[in-house]
C-alpha cells in the first residue's frame, strides 16, 4: 500500500520550488506518476529517458518527518483521518497484491551494457582545493551509483575520502542550480554566448584591461592553457586565483627556503620519526590518502614482534586545533598558534642549526623530539600544516634538510599548480581595482568569494562596482545572487576536464552521465570568450592532450581514460638549494599573551563550504567531536570553565568590530585560551541543508589573520542552540572496549589484549549447544585499530553502498541516525590533552546472536555462511532485536525516511542491488551481502570457490589505511584468517558469549621512552559527562 506522505508540520520545500521551472506542474505530476510505478530497486529501469526529462527542475517533496510528533498542525480533516485509520486497522492487513509494473527496454542497447547485469566502472578524478584524487565510479545503465578509489591513482591507491564518497549525493542534489539565468531570469545558452562575445569585443580595444577572471586554484593543464591563450589575446586582462583554505603560506615558505615555489612531497613509507607542526596530513592535505596508507603501513611494522629493530614509526604532533592526525599521535602537544614558530626555531637550534631559537627551552617534549629526530637522520620527517606561517614552513624545510631527509623522506618537485601565486595578494589587488572601478567584466569560475573572501576585502560591496559579473557554480549561492549572469556548473561527474594530483600526475576527469541540468564546465564558459565557443569540453580536453600523448594518441588516450590518469606525468624529483632558516620576524620572538585567540580551520565535513548542501556530509559525525549537522565553537575544558560556558550555550564572538553568534561545544585537546571555529557552515544561500545550518565564521576572518585571530572577545548570549551529537559519552567508563598498548608492553606480552579475566570469551565447553558448522564459507571481518585513523570514509562508503537515508538534525538529536557503521571515539588519559581511541563498529554478526533469539517473526536469522541476516520484508518492527543487541548497531526506520529517494533526481541515487527500506523496519550492516551474493553467483557459474579478496565490503574497499579486511574464515590462509591468528586479535564484549564474526586488532602506541607514558586506561575515574536533553 502507498505510505502516508503528508507531512503537515513542514515548511514548503525550499529552493527549486520557487524557481520559475519551465516544466508545467502537470508534467511533473505525470513524471511523478511514472516514477511512482517503479519502486525500490525497480526504480532504475526507465532512467534513459528520465535523465533527459525536463521535469528534473521539479520541486522536491520534503525529505524528513522532522517535528512530526508536534501535535499542533492537525485540522479537522486530519483528525477524522486519524480516527478513520485507527478504526480501519483491520482493513490494512491482507493486501499483498503486486502492483502492475511497466518494463522499459532499450531501443538500441549500448555496447557492453548488460541490462540488470554487472555494472560498469569508469575512472575519473575529483579535485578538492585544486588537487586531484582518482575515483572509480560504478555505473548502472549509465547511472552512477557509487564512487570508489582508483587503485591506479597515486593520490588514491584504491581509497576514497569522505568527499569522494559523498560526491554522488552532490551529483543528484536536487537543490543544484538548474538553469542559466540573467538577473534571475532564464536565458538560453546562445544568449550567454552572445553576451560574452560582446563583452570580449568591448575589451579588445583596451587589450582586456577591464577583464578579470577569478578561479579556484587551478592545476588543470587544459584549463590553464585555455586561460593563458585567452590572456595572450588580451594581455591586459588578469587571472586571479582564490582558495579560502589557502596554501599561500606553503608557497611563501618554499620561496623563503628555496627562493622559488617548489612543491615538497613527503614520502612516509621511509619515515621512522614524524613530527607534524600543525599538519593534518591524515585528514586534509594534498595526497592525504597516500600518506595515510604509508603511515599505516609503518604502524603495522610495530605489530610484528621481530619488527622491533628499525621498523615502525613514531608520530609527534604539535598542533593548535585538534585533528585526527593529532588523535593518532604517539605524543601530542597542543599549543597556541603563536607558539609554533618558537617551538620550530628552538628545535632547529636544538638540532644545531641556526634559526635564532634558543635550544635551552627546558621543554621535555622538545628535547625528546630533537634527540629522536637526530637519531633518525634521513628517516625522519617534518610536516608543516597549511595554516602555519611561511617562516614555519621554511623552518620545516630547513630542519628536513639539516636532517638529510631530502631525497629520503621528502622530495622537491616543480609546483603542481598551473600558476603558483600569492593568491591573497592577487585577490587584494583585484578588490582594490574593483573598488577603483577598473574592473569592467569579472568572470568568477567556481568558488564563492562573496561568502568566503576575507572580511576586510568587503568583496560583496566591491563586486557591485563591476559592470558585468558572471558566476559559474553548482549552486545559486551568495555570489550568484550578486552577479547578473549565473551559469549552472556541471558536476565533475558530468564533466570532461583534467587536473593534477599532489605529485603532478595528470588525472583525467571524465563524465559518468550527461549533465542532469544544463550545467557547463569552466572550459565551455571560457570557450565563450574565444572565437570557437561551440567546442565541447570533451574536444577542448582531448585537443589539449592530442599533442602531448605521443604518436599513438588514440591508444594512449584510451588508456588514459581507462586508468583515469596520463601515465608517467608525475613530476620528477629536482634538486633545490639547501634551505636556510629564515630570520625570526619581530612578533614571532615577542609571542607572549594575546588574550583569547580564535582559530579558523576548514570543516572536516564541509571543507570551505563547497559541500554545504551535501546531506551525507552534514549528517556525518565529525571525527572527534561527533557533532553532525551544525558546527560549533570549540573550547577547552579549562577555558570553557573560566568563561562559564556549557555545551550548547550561544556565545557572541567579536573581533575587530565584526561579530558572530555561535553555539559552544567543549572539546578536550583544544589549547587553552583559544576558540576553534570551523569554516564552511552557516551559508546564507545554499540548498535545503546548507542554508542557515551552523554558523558562519568567515566574517571574523581578516586578510592579515587568516588562520588565527588573537584577542577575540567571547560573550555569553544567554540563549542556547541545540547541537546534534551522535556520541554523548566519549569515555569508556573503565571498560576495555578499544584496546591498545605501548609497543614495549606488546613485545613483553603479545597477548595483552586477552589479559582481563572478566573479558575472557566463554569456551565452547561453557555452552550447552553445539555450534552450527558453516557451509562452504564463513564470512568475517577484522578491523585493525592500529591502522584506523578515524577518518570516517568507511561510514560514508557504507551509506552510499547501502541506500542509507539522511534523517536530519532533529532525528539525529533523538538518537535516530541511520549509519550502519559508526566510528566510536573515546578519550583516555589526561582530559586536558587526552589520548584518542577510534573504533569502527559495524554489525558483529554474532554466531550466537542475541538479536535473532528475540525476534518474534524470524526477520533476523542466521545464514548458512554465518551471516546475521536481516530480512526487511519480514520485519514488523518490534525493536526487540535492537534492545538486545549489546553493540547497538541496529537502526530503525522510525519514519518513512526512504521517501527522500522518491525525489526525481534522488531516484537515481540508490544502489539497485540493495532494498530500499520502508517505515517501521529495522536495518543494519549486512557485510554488504549484495556483493557477497554477486561474487558467489559469479564463482558458482564458473564452478569454483570465491577467491580471497574477491569480495570486499564498501567500508573495507574505501579504507585509506586498509584497517578493515573482509574474508572467509573457512579458508585458513585468507588474509582474514591470518589476522584472526594474530595475538592482538580480540572480539568486542566477547565475555557475553556472542561469538562475533567481526573482530578487532588491538591498537599499538609507540611513545618515546624519554617522555612520560600517558595513562592508558580510559577515563574510568571520570564520571560520564552530563547528558544534554537530547537522545
Amino acid at each position: 500500500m502507498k505510505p502516508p506522505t503528508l507531512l503537515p508540520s513542514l515548511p514548503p520545500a525550499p529552493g527549486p520550488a520557487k524557481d520559475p521551472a519551465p516544466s508545467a506542474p502537470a508534467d511533473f505530476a505525470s513524471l511523478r506518476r511514472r516514477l511512482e510505478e517503479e519502486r525500490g530497486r525497480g526504480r532504475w529501469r526507465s532512467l534513459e529517458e528520465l535523465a533527459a526529462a525536463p521535469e528534473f527542475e521539479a520541486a522536491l517533496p520534503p525529505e524528513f518527518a522532522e517535528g512530526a510528533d508536534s501535535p499542533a498542525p492537525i485540522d479537522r480533516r486530519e483528525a477524522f483521518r486519524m480516527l478513520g485509520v485507527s478504526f480501519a486497522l483491520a482493513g490494512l492487513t491482507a493486501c499483498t497484491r503486486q502492483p502492475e509494473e511497466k518494463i522499459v527496454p532499450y531501443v538500441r542497447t549500448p555496447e557492453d551494457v548488460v541490462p540488470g547485469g554487472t555494472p560498469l566502472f569508469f575512472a575519473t578524478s575529483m579535485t578538492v582545493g585544486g588537487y586531484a584524487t582518482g575515483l572509480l565510479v560504478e555505473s548502472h545503465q549509465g547511472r552512477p551509483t557509487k564512487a570508489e578509489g582508483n587503485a591506479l591513482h597515486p593520490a588514491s591507491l584504491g581509497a576514497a575520502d569522505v568527499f569522494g564518497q559523498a560526491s554522488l549525493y552532490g551529483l543528484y542534489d536536487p537543490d543544484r542550480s538548474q538553469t542559466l539565468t540573467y538577473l534571475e531570469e532564464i536565458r538560453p545558452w546562445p544568449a550567454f554566448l552572445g553576451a560574452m562575445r560582446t563583452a570580449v569585443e568591448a575589451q579588445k580595444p583596451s587589450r582586456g584591461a577591464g577583464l578579470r577572471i577569478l578561479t579556484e586554484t587551478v592545476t588543470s593543464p587544459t584549463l590553464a592553457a585555455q586561460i593563458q591563450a585567452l590572456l595572450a589575446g588580451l594581455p591586459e586582462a588578469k587571472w586571479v586565483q582564490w582558495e579560502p583554505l589557502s596554501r599561500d603560506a606553503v608557497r611563501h615558505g618554499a620561496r623563503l627556503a628555496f627562493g622559488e615555489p617548489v612543491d615538497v612531497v613527503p614520502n612516509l613509507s621511509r619515515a621512522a620519526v614524524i613530527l607534524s607542526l600543525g599538519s593534518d596530513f591524515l585528514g586534509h592535505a594534498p595526497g592525504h590518502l597516500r600518506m595515510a596508507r604509508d603511515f599505516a603501513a609503518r604502524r603495522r611494522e610495530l605489530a610484528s614482534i621481530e619488527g622491533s629493530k628499525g621498523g615502525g614509526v613514531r608520530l609527534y604532533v604539535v598542533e593548535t586545533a585538534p585533528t585526527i592526525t593529532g588523535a593518532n599521535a604517539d605524543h601530542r602537544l597542543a599549543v597556541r598558534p603563536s607558539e609554533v614558530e618558537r617551538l620550530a626555531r628552538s628545535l632547529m637550534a636544538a638540532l644545531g642549526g641556526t634559526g635564532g631559537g634558543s635550544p635551552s627551552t627546558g621543554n621535555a617534549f622538545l628535547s625528546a623530539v630533537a634527540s629522536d629526530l637526530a637519531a633518525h637522520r634521513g628517516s625522519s620527517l617534518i610536516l608543516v600544516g597549511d595554516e602555519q606561517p611561511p617562516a614555519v614552513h621554511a623552518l620545516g624545510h630547513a630542519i628536513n634538510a639539516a636532517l638529510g631527509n631530502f631525497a629520503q623522506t621528502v622530495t622537491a618537485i616543480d609546483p603542481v599548480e598551473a600558476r603558483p601565486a600569492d593568491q591573497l595578494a592577487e585577490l587584494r589587488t583585484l578588490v582594490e581595482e574593483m573598488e577603483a572601478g577598473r574592473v569592467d567584466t569579472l568572470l568568477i569560475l567556481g568558488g564563492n568569494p562573496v561568502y568566503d573572501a576575507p572580511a576586510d576585502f568587503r568583496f560583496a560591496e566591491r563586486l557591485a562596482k563591476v559592470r558585468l559579473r558572471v558566476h559559474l557554480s553548482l549552486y545559486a549561492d551568495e555570489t550568484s545572487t550578486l552577479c547578473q549572469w549565473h551559469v549552472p556548473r556541471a558536476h565533475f561527474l558530468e564533466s570532461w576536464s583534467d587536473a593534477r594530483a599532489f605529485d603532478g600526475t595528470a588525472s583525467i576527469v571524465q563524465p559518468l552521465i550527461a549533465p542532469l541540468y544544463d550545467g557547463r564546465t569552466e572550459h565551455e564558459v571560457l570557450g565563450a570568450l574565444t572565437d570557437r565557443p561551440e567546442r565541447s569540453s570533451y574536444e577542448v580536453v582531448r585537443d589539449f592532450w592530442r599533442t602531448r600523448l605521443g604518436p599513438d594518441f588514440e591508444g594512449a588516450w584510451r588508456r588514459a581514460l581507462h586508468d583515469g590518469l596520463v601515465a608517467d606525468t608525475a613530476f620528477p624529483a629536482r634538486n633545490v638549494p639547501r634551505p636556510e632558516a629564515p630570520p625570526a620576524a619581530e612578533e614571532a620572538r615577542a609571542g607572549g599573551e594575546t588574550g583569547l585567540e580564535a582559530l579558523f580551520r576548514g570543516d572536516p565535513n564541509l571543507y570551505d563550504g563547497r559541500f554545504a548542501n551535501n546531506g551525507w556530509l552534514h549528517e556525518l559525525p565529525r571525527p572527534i567531536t561527533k557533532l553532525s549537522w551544525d558546527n560549533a565553537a570549540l573550547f577547552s575544558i579549562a577555558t570553557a570553565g573560566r568563561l562559564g560556558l556549557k555545551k550548547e550555550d550561544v556565545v557572541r564572538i567579536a573581533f575587530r568590530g565584526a561579530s558572530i553568534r555561535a553555539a559552544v561545544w567543549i572539546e578536550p585537546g583544544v589549547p587553552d585560551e583559544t576558540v576553534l571555529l570551523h569554516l564552511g557552515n552557516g551559508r546564507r544561500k545554499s540548498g535545503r541543508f546548507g542554508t542557515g545550518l551552523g554558523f558562519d565564521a568567515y566574517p571574523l576572518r581578516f586578510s592579515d589573520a587568516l588562520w588565527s585571530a588573537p584577542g577575540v572577545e567571547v560573550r555569553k548570549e544567554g540563549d542556547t542552540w541545540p547541537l546534534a551529537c551522535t556520541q554523548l559519552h566519549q569515555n569508556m567508563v573503565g571498560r576495555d572496549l578499544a584496546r591498545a598498548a605501548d609497543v614495549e608492553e606488546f613485545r613483553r606480552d603479545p597477548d595483552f589484549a586477552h589479559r582481563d579475566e572478566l573479558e575472557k570469551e566463554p569456551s565452547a565447553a561453557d555452552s550447552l549447544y553445539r555450534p552450527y558448522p558453516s557451509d562452504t564459507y564463513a564470512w568475517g571481518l577484522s578491523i585493525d585499530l592500529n591502522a584506523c585513523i578515524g577518518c570516517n570514509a568507511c561510514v560514508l562508503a557504507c551509506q552510499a553502498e547501502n541506500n542509507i537515508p539522511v534523517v536530519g538534525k532533529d532525528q539525529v538529536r533523538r538518537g535516530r541516525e541511520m549509519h550502519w557503521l559508526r566510528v566510536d571515539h573515546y578519550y583516555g588519559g589526561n582530559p586536558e590533552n587526552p589520548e584518542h581511541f577510534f573504533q569502527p563498529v559495524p554489525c558483529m554478526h554474532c554466531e550466537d546472536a542475541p538479536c535473532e533469539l528475540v525476534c518474534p517473526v524470524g526477520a533476523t536469522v542466521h545464514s548458512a555462511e554465518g551471516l546475521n541476516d536481516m530480512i526487511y520484508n519480514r520485519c514488523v518492527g518490534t525493536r526487540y532485536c535492537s534492545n538486545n543487541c549489546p553493540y547497538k548497531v541496529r537502526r530503525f526506520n522510525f519514519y518513512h525516511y526512504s521517501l527522500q529517494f522518491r525525489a526525481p533526481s534522488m531516484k537515481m541515487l540508490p544502489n539497485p542491488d540493495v532494498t530500499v527500506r520502508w517505515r517501521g523496519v529495522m536495518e543494519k550492516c549486512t557485510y554488504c551481502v549484495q556483493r557477497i551474493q554477486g561474487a558467489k553467483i559469479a564463482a558458482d557459474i564458473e564452478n569454483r570457490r570465491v577467491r580471497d579478496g574477491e569480495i570486499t565490503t564498501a567500508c573495507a574497499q574505501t579504507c585509506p589505511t586498509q584497517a578493515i579486511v573482509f574474508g572467509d574464515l573457512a579458508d585458513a590462509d585468507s588474509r582474514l584468517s591470518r589476522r584472526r591468528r594474530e595475538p592482538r586479535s580480540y572480539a568486542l564484549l566477547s565475555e557475553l558469549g556472542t561469538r562475533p564474526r567481526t573482530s578487532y586488532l588491538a591498537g599499538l602506541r609507540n611513545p618515546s621512552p624519554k617522555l612520560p607514558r600517558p595513562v592508558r586506561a580510559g577515563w574510568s575515574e571520570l564520571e560520564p559527562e552530563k547528558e544534554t536533553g537530547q537522545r
Partner: protein
Amino acid sequence: MTDSSRELPRTSSPGDPDRDIIGPGYTFASITDKISQITLSRRTPRFWFVGFALAFLLTMVLFGAIGWLFLKGIGIWGVNIPIGWGFAIVNFVWWIGIGHAGTLISAILLLLHQEWRTSINRFAEAMTLFAVACAGLFPLLHLGRPWLAYYLLPYPNTMALWPQWRSPLVWDVFAVSTYGTVSLLFWYVGLIPDLATLRDRARRKGFQIVYGMLAMGWRGSARHWHRYETAYLLLAGLATPLVISVHTVVSFDFTIGIVPGWHSTIFPPYFVAGAIYSGFAMVLTLAIPLRAVYGLEDFITIRHLQNMAKILLATGLIVAYGYLMETFIGWYSGNPFDWYMVKNRLLGPYGPTYWLLIACNLLSPQALWWKRVRSSPWRLFLIALLVNTGMWLERFVIVVTSLHRDFLPSSWGMYVPTIWDWATFIGTLGLFAALFFLFIRFLPMISIFEMRTLIPEADVETPAETRSRREATP
C-alpha cells in the same frame, strides 16, 4: 410483594464489622433486589453520566493518538536507539499486572475457600478483562508495521513461514490471548445464573430478550448446578497456574534479553508479586468509591478492605525484597555492567524516578501495619493510588533506565516521552474507565447467586422449620 411479607423476620447475628462479609438483615430476596435493581430499575446516578462522558472523551483521545501513529509511524513517540521500548511496553506490563487481581481473587481465593471473595470477584474479573484489553493494545501499537501483526501468529501462509518460537514476544501473544480468553470464559460462566436472575427480574421485553439470550436459558436445575460448580472449580484450577504463568512470561520479555537490569532470574517471582500488588491496588481503587456511591457497604465490608490491605502489604514486601535483591546481586555478581546499571539507576539521570518508585511501592504500604489505616477506606484509597503510580514507575525504571545505558558508552542515550506517548497512556485509562462504567451500568457488579449462599438461610440442615410449617398446614 405478598410472599416476602409472609416471611418471618430473619436476622443474622448483630454485625461485627471486622468479621462480617455481609451486613445484617439480608434475605435472598433483598440481596437479589438490591443488586439487580442497580442495573434494572434504579435511575442511573448523575455521576455515572459525568464519569462516562469523561472516560469516553479520553477514549477518543486514544483513537486520535492511534490514528496519528499509524499515519506517521512510531517516530512520533520518544523511542530511539538505544531505548527501543518506551511507554508502550511500560503501559503494557502495567495493565497486564493490574489484570491479575481479578482472576486471582476468583480462582485462587476460591480454591482457598475464602468466602469473602464473593462480593468482590465479579467486578474484579471485569476489571481484569478491561485491563487485559488495554494491555493487549500496546504490543500491537508499538510495532513499526502494526498492519503486519498477524506475522506473530501461526497461520497458513503462502510464504511457508512460521513465528520464531524462541522469542518471548511470541510467548506473550499466546500467554496474553489465552489469559484474555480464559478470564472471559470464567467471568461469563460466573455471570450465567445472575443473567438468568436479570432475565426474570427485567420488566421490559428488550432486556428480557438480551439477558435471556446471554443466560442461555439457565433455569437453576440441580443437575445443571452440579456440573456448573464442577466446571467452575476446574476453571479455577486452570486459571490459577495461568495467572502465575502470564506475568512470568511477561517478565521473560526482559529476562531473556541480555541487557543489564533485565537479565535476572529474580524477575518472574517478583513480577508476579508485583502484578498481584498492583492488581489489588486497582481493586481497592475501584471498590472504595463504588461501595460509597452505590451504598454497598454491607456487601463490601470493612473486612474485605482489611483483607485486601493485608494482601497488599504482603505482596508489597515481596516486591521490596525483589528490589533489594536486584541491587544486591548487581554488586555481588561482580559483573561490571550490572553494577554500573545499579549505580546508574540510583544516581543516574533517571535516579529521581527510582526513588519516587521506592517511596510509592516500598514506604507507603508500610502504613498498612496499622489497623487504623487498614480499616479506613479513604486512607486505603490513597495508598492504593500511590501503589498504582509506583508500579507504573517500576516498569518505567526497568524498561528505560536499563536500556539507556547498556554495554557500549558510545551508544548511550536518553528517553524523553513525547505528547503522543502521554496521549496514548491517558487514552487507555479512558478506555478502561469507559468499559468499566458500561459494566456497572448493565451487569450485576456483585455475584448475586454467590451472595445468596452467604446468608444463614442458605444452610439446609434446619429441618425444624419445615416440620413446624407442615404442622401449621391444615
